[in-house]
């Protein structure tokens, strides 16, 4: 246990996020003059080089972890940069830690991120904001690496917000179109709602632990202190349940789950490499990572796990049904991403953390490949995104077509490709886990069928059949340059081989292939639920193989239906869209009217509330202020009257009296000398007479 408490110091780990940060700083501050002086080439190479360097460091960290005994591996490598917040009992450092889970994440982020950077140098080549794009992209890489490497909830939250900001900036990258700016704002605001829950969850955890004297946000200390939460209750709910539910609210925002998934399809307004990097491979998986990171906490809250599983399954189904009817090539992939994220949450919810993270990794490969492939198609079509105007591109875009097909097969769950292993691990867990339920398994399998249908619908509409594009668009069709196709091939290869890291026991056991991925994550997520179930006996293995066969059959059914509808054209798709009066079709085409519902309830509601509070502010608050002002004005008017009429009045009466008397008295000064003489004489005579009369009396 003591080894768990003492991670191995490894200063170079800090460079993994800091190198892309340096790249972002250089590009962000000096990008414009550099681009003017040296052109776009060096900008693109700098951006790719920083992520490439991070990838190499991530590989070094991975290799170092491989060489450590499992217990020390669980504690991981840590680079403690500097003390950040030391207030009261709260002690948080800026420290980056690599443990098996982080190692997977940083390899995905820097590896797939690096490929997408490379691809973007081709895709964005004609954009004047080239430097700005790569500054954001590097900044995003930094933020995402902070998210997965931060050794405390607080640092994770910094990365969490950082990726949210970069997501906003990159969705609205072509900000001159108000629709793009609106999409960015929508993403940011919806995420804000989730972040609110996330912050409350952090507060609740810290607050409760602090009351026990273990106030901490460090993951490894949280893990040790978590048992203290077991008996705690708040408002009649267990604190672990409440805290994990709040954190899950944050995850639904960031990872696009019901009810906060609405931003992700709109986020496709951003450039396609952004959709691939942020809105498919990395950022949206932050919620999955967070649950995996705090799996010890979620394991204490079965109610939350049940909510997570149900929300995941429901989102998977809802998004898959919407994807069936979309005609925008990127919208289909966006809903597909929402749906696949639902799978991952389903896995987390049934306690199969390893399977969830495994699907996260395989999904990153094939979904990035699909998005980049769609970008290549859009690039070739001169910006066209409507699949109804595509078709027959297989011959024109051979590399894109082949890699797209490989990735589609992988996501469909074609046996022995990556998606097959990860998806079946989830479905098996949904069925067999103590937290699972056969209903969840059935939902997941239905979604597998839908996924196969809409993905092959897309492949058939885009790459097969007649080309429905305008003649001059057809004339300009061309395969993308090597800088874009090489990442596609690498990702396609990943979509094939990544699955072999997690061969299920039922298949791998007999031929001696171990489940590498679960064993790798075991120090973080604890012993796998699956391992216990899978190792139970031959009967269980038989069930697992049977379920696998069912899901493959369902997927094959979906592919067949897509082939019938969109290649053979018999039955015509219109028959389906017209079924039941066209109501189901219109519902899924219009995304179940969820956006309209949110608009009516939340946006209008918020505006109405704002109007109400504005009214209150104007008439009550301002009324109070104005009333007080009027009262003061009245009192001062009275005081003014008193001053004018009483105080000034007294002064004026004295002054006026003096004036009047003086006016009268001045008449005495006649200026005539004779008058004075008369007065003098009479005065003397009068005085003498007085004196005599006085003298005579005495």
């Amino acid at each position, binding site marked *: 246990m003591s080894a768990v408490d003492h991670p191995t110091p490894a200063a170079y780990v800090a460079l993994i996020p800091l190198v892309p940060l340096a790249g972002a700083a250089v590009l962000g501050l000096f990008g414009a003059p550099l681009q003017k002086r040296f052109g776009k080439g060096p900008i693109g190479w700098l951006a790719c080089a920083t992520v490439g360097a991070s990838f190499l460091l991530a590989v070094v960290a991975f290799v170092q972890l491989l060489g450590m005994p499992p217990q020390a591996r669980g504690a991981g490598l840590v680079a403690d940069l500097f003390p950040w917040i030391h207030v009261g009992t709260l002690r948080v450092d800026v420290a980056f830690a690599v443990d098996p889970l982080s190692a997977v994440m940083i390899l995905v982020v820097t590896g797939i991120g690096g490929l997408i950077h490379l691809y973007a140098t081709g895709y964005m080549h004609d954009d004047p904001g080239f430097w700005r794009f790569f500054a954001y992209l590097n900044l995003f890489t930094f933020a995402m690496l902070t998210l997965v490497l931060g050794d405390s909830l607080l640092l994770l939250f910094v990365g969490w917000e950082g990726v949210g900001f970069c997501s906003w900036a990159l969705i609205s990258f072509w900000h001159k179109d108000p629709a793009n700016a609106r999409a960015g704002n929508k993403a940011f605001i919806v995420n804000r709602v989730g972040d609110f829950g996330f912050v409350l969850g952090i507060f609740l955890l810290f607050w409760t632990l602090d009351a026990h004297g273990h106030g901490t946000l460090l993951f490894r200390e949280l893990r040790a202190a978590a048992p203290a939460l077991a008996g705690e209750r708040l408002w009649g709910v267990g604190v672990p349940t409440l805290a994990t539910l709040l954190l899950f609210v944050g995850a639904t925002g960031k990872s696009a789950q019901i009810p906060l998934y609405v931003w992700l399809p709109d986020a496709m307004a951003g450039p396609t490499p952004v959709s691939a990097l942020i809105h498919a491979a990395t950022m949206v998986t932050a919620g999955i990572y967070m649950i995996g990171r705090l799996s010890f906490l979620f394991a204490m809250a079965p109610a939350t796990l049940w909510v997570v599983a149900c929300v995941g399954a429901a989102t998977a189904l809802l998004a898959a049904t919407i994807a069936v009817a979309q005609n925008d090539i990127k919208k289909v992939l966006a809903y597909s991403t929402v749906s696949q994220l639902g799978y991952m949450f389903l896995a987390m919810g049934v306690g199969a953390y390893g399977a969830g993270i495994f699907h996260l990794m395989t999904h990153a490969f094939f979904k990035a490949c699909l998005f980049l492939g769609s970008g290549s198609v859009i690039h070739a079509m001169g910006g066209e995104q409507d699949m109804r105007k595509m078709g027959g591109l297989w011959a024109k875009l051979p590399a894109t077509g082949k890699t797209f097909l490989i990735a589609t097969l992988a996501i469909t769950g074609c046996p022995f490709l990556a998606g097959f292993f990860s998806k079946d691990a989830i479905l098996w867990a949904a069925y067999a886990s103590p937290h699972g339920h056969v209903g969840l398994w059935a939902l997941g399998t239905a979604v597998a069928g839908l996924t196969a249908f809409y993905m092959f619908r897309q492949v058939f509409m885009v790459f097969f059949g007649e080309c429905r594009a305008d003649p001059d668009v057809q004339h300009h069709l061309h395969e993308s340059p090597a800088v874009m196709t090489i990442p596609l091939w690498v990702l396609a290869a990943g979509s094939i081989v990544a699955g072999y890291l997690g061969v299920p026991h039922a298949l791998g056991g007999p031929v001696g292939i171990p489940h590498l991925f679960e064993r790798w994550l075991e120090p973080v997520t604890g012993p796998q639920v699956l391992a216990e179930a899978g190792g139970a006996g031959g009967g269980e293995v038989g069930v697992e193989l049977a379920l696998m066969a069912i899901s493959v059959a369902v997927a094959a059914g979906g592919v067949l239906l897509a082939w019938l509808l969109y290649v053979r054209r018999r039955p015509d798709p219109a028959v389906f869209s017209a079924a039941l009066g066209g109501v189901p079709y219109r519902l899924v085409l219009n995304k179940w009217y969820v956006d309209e519902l949110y608009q009516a309830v939340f946006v209008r509601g918020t505006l109405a509330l704002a109007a109400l509070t504005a009214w209150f502010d104007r008439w009550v608050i301002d009324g109070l202020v104005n009333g007080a002002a009027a009262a003061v004005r009245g009192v001062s008017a009275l005081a003014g009257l008193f001053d004018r009429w009483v105080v000034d009045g007294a002064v004026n009466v004295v002054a006026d009296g003096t004036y009047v008397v003086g006016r009268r*008295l*001045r*008449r*005495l*000064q*006649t*200026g*005539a*000398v*004779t008058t004075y*003489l*008369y007065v003098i*004489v009479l005065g003397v005579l009068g005085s003498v007479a007085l004196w005599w009369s006085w003298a005579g009396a005495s």
Partner: protein
Amino acid sequence: MGELAVTHFVVLATVLFALGLFCVVTRRNALGILMGVELILNAANVNYVAFARYAQTGYDGQLFAIVVIMLAAAEAAIGLAIVLGIYRSFETIDVEATDRLRG
């Protein structure tokens, strides 16, 4: 009768004083007023000298009379200077016309 008594001088001085006073209060000419003032002063001098002669009290009375003569000379000098100033300002020495100090 025959013998001059102090009463005669007192009567003379009284007449002189009355004439001077009359002159001072009735004259409109500033020089006339100054002359009236001289008459009043001299009426006082006559009294000083007469009472000094008949009361046999030494020469105090005579001394006072000389002081008054000196005083009258000084007064005449200043008074004439004022009259000259009045004339410069008003082109007249009629005191009824010089009423610029009227309040």
